[in-house]
């Protein structure tokens, strides 16, 4: 199964090789979507955990014991369809082509699976239709 989580590390845990431990101890592949990590600062990691359901749960349990805050409500881009005017300006700054215009209808399409939550689309949107819950 696949689970997207946001990990917040206290400053003392930033040194720990988390993704290595997830792979080695739990056989969980951690695909890093976003990361903000620096020495002696609270770190933040948005990862997609891929593995057996029991092992993913065990991995989350273990991380929580390490005082890593695990949030299942991971950062996601939301597009308010009532506000969006389908201009497509956001498609030009989206680095992963998660945001595209349908070549026939020219309506905005959002493929969440491709989104890395870089948030460049948020200030670009002229009508403020895009937001994140992170």
């Amino acid at each position, binding site marked *: 199964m696949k689970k997207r989580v946001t990990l917040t590390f206290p400053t003392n845990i930033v040194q720990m090789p988390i993704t290595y431990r997830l792979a080695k101890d739990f056989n969980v592949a951690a695909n890093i979507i976003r990361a903000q990590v620096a020495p002696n600062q609270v770190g933040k990691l948005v990862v997609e955990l891929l593995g057996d359901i029991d092992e993913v749960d065990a991995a989350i349990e273990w991380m929580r014991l390490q005082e890593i805050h695990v949030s299942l409500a991971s950062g996601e881009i939301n597009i308010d369809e009532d506000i969006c005017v389908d201009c497509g300006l956001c498609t030009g700054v989206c680095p992963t082509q998660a945001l595209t215009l349908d*070549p026939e209808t020219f309506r905005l399409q959002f493929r969440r699976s491709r989104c890395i939550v870089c948030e460049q689309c948020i200030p670009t949107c002229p009508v*403020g239709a895009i937001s994140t819950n992170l």
Partner: protein
Amino acid sequence: MRTIAEINEKISRRQAVAWTVEELKARVKESGVAKAFKQVDVICTGTFEPMESSGAIINLGHTDPPIKIRQCWLDGIPAYAGFGAVDLYLGATAMADYSSSDVLDGNLRQGTERERGGAHVIEDLIAGKPVQLRAIGQMTDCYPRASFENTITKESINQFYLFNPRNLYQNFIVGVNGGDRPLFTYLGPLQPRLANAVYSNPGAISPLLNDPDLQLIGIGTKVFLGGGIGYVAWEGTQHFPLQKRLPNRTPIGPAATVALIADAKQMNPYWVRGCYLHNYGPSLMLGVGVPLPVLQEEVVHHCAIQDKEIVAPVMDFSIPRRVRPTFGLVTYEQLKSGRITIEGKSVRVAPLASIYLSRKVAEELKQWIIAGKFTITEPVATIPQDRSFIAQDRRGSQFTLE
């Protein structure tokens, strides 16, 4: 040959044949110009794009005692008041004036954000929302009042109409950034080293590209504006019909423009949207539809134009001068494919006009005509076709940059 009177007669009997310009293009491809000409009476074009040279005229109605307004703010956004006592002009790109002492004394509505401009206030008024008014007057014997504050809605004011000095640009440019830092422009963010490109005209469906020499559109032409009925009032500012043109008569860059006027009280906020271009400023996204009466076969011929036959220049915004370097011309077919090639590099392209809503404007106008709700007009005067594009240089300048 058809006449406007004949077409209006058919519209009133609900027998007029109206097609969107895309339907026309498809029919011409299928069966040719002559056959399409026999079938169709009106061709409906539309666009939905930011048109920043727009604004609203408002007459508030007189207060007791009366006031001659000299300075005025609507939701903290300054409106021009340098004419009749309670006449105001609220420009789409007007922004809250942060340097004024008004901010410090707390008179501005809380939550006025930099992203909010005159266009957003116009949208709110059209949507029927209340707007805060604050005015300072010049005390005279006729108008003794010094200041006035109130909450207004579109129902509590006399006139409320859009008067847009420049709309419907006939073609525009494509923006890129050849420099090494991000730029925030009226076309949206342009990323460095040619990482993206933005175009803002919807191409072959755009109204003025289907009547390239303005033979049909003139002063008095009735149009769809923001969901209400409006008219072409004049040539637009920066109207430049003498732009270089292709043999099909479409210009290779920004050319003709028109000034539009329409009652905002009839409008629908779905078609009038305040917008904000990051680190540039507010603007107004507007849906405008123009009907083209099929008087002669030539009309069909012009409207049959395809995206691959229309071009726009790619301009480098990293040089902030009046004349910017260009990377040459690209077709709207290339632009709409989502990628263009500049200096051998594939660059992703995004539109700023909503092609989806542009089509919807044309469709809405078509439905109005089919239902007999919208008749067409004969222009009362033509738009000049000989205007040059004068630049503002300091007198005495010895050399030109062009």
